[in-house]
């Protein structure tokens, strides 16, 4: 593997100044499940590796009815799905964090890292988009917030500027009669990168028969995880029915711009967009109605 120095940053300030000083010569290490492979295979170059697991703000994990969920960027997946409160409040997030890699990966991999790796096929991102998550970023000029759907700008590239660091991800508290669901399609039952993945959330009216709002996102079908607002908007005011769901799924499918590679052909991916968007919506509706 290429030669590099290692620093375990203890404060946000220290990390930011290191990243600012070294620019693209530095990279951030959290769970390491992507970055170490990329460094080893030379797909990513770095002279300095900044370990951010020692920074308090990046390890926060708080979930309250009032404030919602704040998820430190260095919190590993396992810690999220092992938290009963979070599991109950955000099953749509749990869907995603509990199927990344295997148990060994989930013990290290972080949602923050999944975001910053900015893979078009990242499994947590469509779920986060559906849940309306917002990123908190710290940098030389202080902190700023970015919506998750705006965080990835190209394969492997994010909205982070020189010296900036993802601190945490915030999810609003789940509304009553709302539900979210995430799923992916892979050839095996574990350990694969998504051929297509999909996240959806819905909010139903008091009688749980009409859509108040909905959000749908697809992964692995565009250069970045794809938020498709028009698909969700198409459901607003419609009564909950297979027809409405299929319509929205078709809109999502139409928005996809898949390519062909060793994980799937464009045509296959396009077809799967419809299937997964539909299944994601159905799962979200079921949860909104109080099922699981």
């Amino acid at each position, binding site marked *: *593997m*290429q*030669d590099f120095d290692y620093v375990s940053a203890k404060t946000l300030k220290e990390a930011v100044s290191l990243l600012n000083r070294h620019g693209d010569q530095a990279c951030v290490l959290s769970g390491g499940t992507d970055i170490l492979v990329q460094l080893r295979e030379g797909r990513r170059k770095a002279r300095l590796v900044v370990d951010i697991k020692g920074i308090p703000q990046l390890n926060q994990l708080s979930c309250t009815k009032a404030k919602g969920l704040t998820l430190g960027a260095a919190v590993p997946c396992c810690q999220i799905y092992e938290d009963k409160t979070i599991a109950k409040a955000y099953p749509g997030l749990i869907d995603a964090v509990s199927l990344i890699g295997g148990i060994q990966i989930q013990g290290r991999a972080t949602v923050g890292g999944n975001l910053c790796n900015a893979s078009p096929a990242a499994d947590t991102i469509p779920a986060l988009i559906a849940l309306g998550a917002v990123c908190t970023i710290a940098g030389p000029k202080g902190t700023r917030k970015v919506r998750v759907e705006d965080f990835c700008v190209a394969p492997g590239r994010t909205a982070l500027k020189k010296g900036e660091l993802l601190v945490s991800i915030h999810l609003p508290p789940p509304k009553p009669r709302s539900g979210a669901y995430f799923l992916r*399609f892979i*050839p*095996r*039952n*574990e*350990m*694969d*990168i998504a*051929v297509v993945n999909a996240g959806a959330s819905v909010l139903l009216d008091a009688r749980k028969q009409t859509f108040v709002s909905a959000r749908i996102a697809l992964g692995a079908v565009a250069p970045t995880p794809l938020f498709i607002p028009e698909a969700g908007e198409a459901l607003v005011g419609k009564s909950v029915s297979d027809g409405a769901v299929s319509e929205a799924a078709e809109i999502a499918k139409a928005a996809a711009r898949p390519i062909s*590679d*060793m*994980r*799937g*052909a464009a*045509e*296959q991916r396009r*077809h*799967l967009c419809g*299937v997964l968007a539909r299944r994601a919506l159905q799962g979200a509706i079921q949860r909104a109605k109080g099922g699981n």
Partner: protein
Amino acid sequence: MADVKEFKVVGTRPIRHDGTDKVTGRALYGGDVRMAGMLYGKVLRSPHAHARIKSINIRKALSLPGVRAVVTGKDLPDAADRIAELGEGAVNLKYLGNNCLADDKVLYKGHAVAAVAAVNAHVAEEALSLINVKYEVLPPVLDVREAMKDDAPLLLPELRTTSLGQKGDKPSNVASHFQFKKGDPEKGFREADLIVEREFFTATVHQGYIETHNATAMWNPDGLLTIWCSTQGAFTVRQQASELLNIPVSKIKVVPMEIGGGFGGKIRVYIEPVAALLSRKTGRPVKIVMTRAEVLEGTGPTPGSYIRVKIGANREGRITAAEAYLAYEAGAYPGSPVGAGAMCIFAPYDLENAQVDGYDVVVNKPQTSAYRAPGATNAALAETLIDEIAERLKMDPIDLRLKNAAKEGVRRVDGPVFPRIGCVEVLEATRNHPHYTAPLGGPNRGRGVALGFWFNVGLKSSASASVNADGTVSLVEGSTDIGGSRTTAAMHVAEELGIAAEDVRPVVGDTDSVGYTDVTGGSRVTFATGWACYEAAQDIKRQLCERAARLWEISSDDVTYENGGCVSRSDPSRRITFKELAGKLGDTGGPVVGRASVDPQGVGGAFAANIVDVEVDPDTGKTQVLRFTVVQDAGKAIHPSYVEGQMQGGSVQGIGWALNEEYFYDSKGVMRNASLLDYRMPTCLDLPMIDTVIVEVPNPGHPYGVRGVGEVPIVPPAAAISNAIYHAVGIRMNCLPMSPGKVLEEILKKG
């Protein structure tokens, strides 16, 4: 004979002797070798699938601090362009050498071009990037049918098509063509009431052993070379190294470390001679361990193939004629297992009229190696036509197979006559299994069956067994142990001497410590090495009888060995147990060592059948295996747990081959999925339990009736799953793998 013999040890399930070392992490595999002053080697590999090497400049690499040596193809003595018998298949030495380190041409992406030895692996890796190789890139040819065309890019300009000694006159990528013909196929097809014909396309797949290739070499100043490595055959490594390095075998000792899987892929050498060259240049031990990408891109996969099969049958379900055309990708150099595939394809059936044509074709992919019943799995896709005939005739598919099943006395399409075989017994056991009639319980579910054949081989094995004074035996045999075989070997000695398996301590010897032994492959170890151990035990018995005779002061003719001891024929009250006698050896003439080397005939072929239930998701094309049963004729199961293990492991490799495993190439001939992330071998979450039924039709050619079990279980799964998919969603797949994308495509086509 075998079927009447009463066994005490054979057929039991003792804990393997090497087990504790392996569950505690103490067992030493090739990659675990560490030595004082050891250097680490890394191999530079071609980024191109087909190119001429214009020049290699190593100056920069040599000047990197920590680098001790660099070697290229020039450092390999020119190997003669001749074919050597390497114990398990013949190999052209020039090609073998060029595959270890290319000379003037690279023939696949990942082809070894140079190697570096440095103080650690990271420095060696950095040095690779400093080696400057100038290539003239040539167009690659990746598909077997493309490669057969007259205008295809030629890999080996000197290559001419040979068909039984007849050489073609123009250059070609077709290395050889052969043909089997029995009876009159044309007439047979005229007599048929229905004829089915299909073509199949199968992708390149890899053996996928979890341990990557590794080799550590120390070339002493006295000219003695020692190689520690993971190999299926220490003696074949010794011979290959001797041929490639041009030194006598007596100057080479190969120490077979524990091996992390082989399946046929760890027979040919790759890095062993390279580590040796680097050691000679540096005077230090040099260790090379391949990365997973190197294993996938640079070591023997098993061929992709194009297969066309035509079968005719009459209304009664009798096959009247069969025809097959098999074209296999040999990879960069000739030597695909198309011959075996051609001999196996119709072997389960008693055919009057048949013709099989086989073609061995070079393409710009890694040179293929053996993989568990090499060539037979591709060919077994013919089983999907048998299923189709049964469906069209409204016959039970197993009844149809039984109607045509091969049995003792049947002449195979390739000529020879079958001895006693268990084809019928396997089919009957399959039909009688509760799985065969169990309800499927759900939509989009289907059940498939298929039958497969593999020859098994015998070859040479040696063993020596020393009697210890405490009544135990130390056994040295030469078969590297990939699946518990040293325990199976010990069980033969224990059975014959009437002692416990635990009282025989088996070790796998290096090439200086045991007689010549061929590779662990061809399902031969239990058959042949077990037989050597059986003979070594007979040798011990003979000597013990003489000792007992001396003790009792009677003639040795009056002493026989039975029930775990010596007894006097004339006075059966005179009896001494093995343990008692072992304690007296010192005073009766000294130590007793039993020895044997065998090259046995009497190999027994094996049949396996599968019943598999699948569920196909019609929206995604994904196939889930719900239930799987494998029925196999083992002849005699020495250690049933490890026989089941072979059946289960082989079945699951077949399932992976059927559903998801494939080399995914881009148009430039670059493998795009050279990692265990995207080369998708089954995980335990993809599988059900694998039910096993061991059928025992004793092989009359073996003292215990052993046939060999390792390979045949990989033969039927792909065809069985293809049949199951058809019965689930009504599509006949004509390719491997039957990955979700391809199944979905067919489902959508069907509408």
